[in-house]
C-alpha cells in the first residue's frame, strides 16, 4: 500500500468559502479514498473514486482524479465550521489492502 501526500498541510478559510485539498501519490492505483478525522476521533470515510473515474460528487464534496498526474483533489463547497477537521487521502494499489495515511490537511473553517 502506498501513502498519499496531502497538500497544503494546513488551510484556514471563512465559513461559506470553498476549500480545496490536494493529494499526490507515486504508483498506479485501483482506487483512491478520502477520509476525515475530527480531533482525537476515528476516521470517517467520505468518498471513493475508482481509477477509471475522473470526477465524483457527494453532497458538498467534489473529488477529481487525474491518473496521468497521479493526483486527486477534494473540494468542499460552502464550508461550515463543522467541516473543521483533518482530511486524508488513501490511494489503493490493490483493492482490500491496508490503508496508509499521510499527514493530512488540517482544515479550519472560521465562523
Amino acid at each position: 500500500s502506498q501513502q498519499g501526500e496531502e497538500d497544503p498541510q494546513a488551510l484556514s478559510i471563512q465559513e461559506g468559502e470553498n476549500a480545496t485539498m490536494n493529494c499526490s501519490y507515486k504508483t498506479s492505483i485501483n482506487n483512491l479514498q478520502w477520509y476525515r478525522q475530527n480531533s482525537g476521533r476515528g476516521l470517517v470515510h467520505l468518498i471513493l473514486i475508482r481509477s477509471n473515474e475522473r470526477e465524483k460528487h457527494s453532497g458538498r464534496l467534489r473529488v477529481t482524479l487525474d491518473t496521468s498526474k497521479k493526483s486527486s483533489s477534494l473540494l468542499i463547497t460552502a464550508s461550515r465550521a463543522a467541516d473543521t477537521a483533518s482530511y486524508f487521502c488513501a490511494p489503493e494499489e490493490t483493492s482490500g489492502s491496508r490503508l496508509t495515511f499521510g499527514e493530512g490537511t488540517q482544515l479550519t473553517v472560521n465562523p
Partner: protein
Amino acid sequence: EPEVTQTPSHQVTQMGQEVILRCVPISNHLYFYWYRQILGQKVEFLVSFYNNEISEKSEIFDDQFSVERPDGSNFTLKIRSTKLEDSAMYFCASRAEENIQYFGAGTRLSVL
C-alpha cells in the same frame, strides 16, 4: 446506522502490564483492522484480520501484539507487556467486500 464500537474509551496501565482493547465490528463485516495514532502523528496500520487469521501486519505489530476474534462479535487487540511508547489512540475498523473501512471512536491507551 451501524457502527464500530470500542471499549474502553480510555485505558490507563502500568508499564509491563498486559492490556486488551476490545472492538465490536459492524455485524455483517468480514475484514477487521487495528490502527494506532501516537499523539500528534499520523494514523498507522497495525494488522488486518480475515477468516480467523491475520492477513497482513506491519513492522509495528511485533510479538508483543496479538489479535483474536473470540466469538462472533468481538475483535480484540492484546499487548502483552506494555511499554511507554505504546501510549497512543488505537482504532479498530471493519469493512464488507468493498474497501470502505468504518472506524471506531478509538481507545486512548496511556502507559505510565
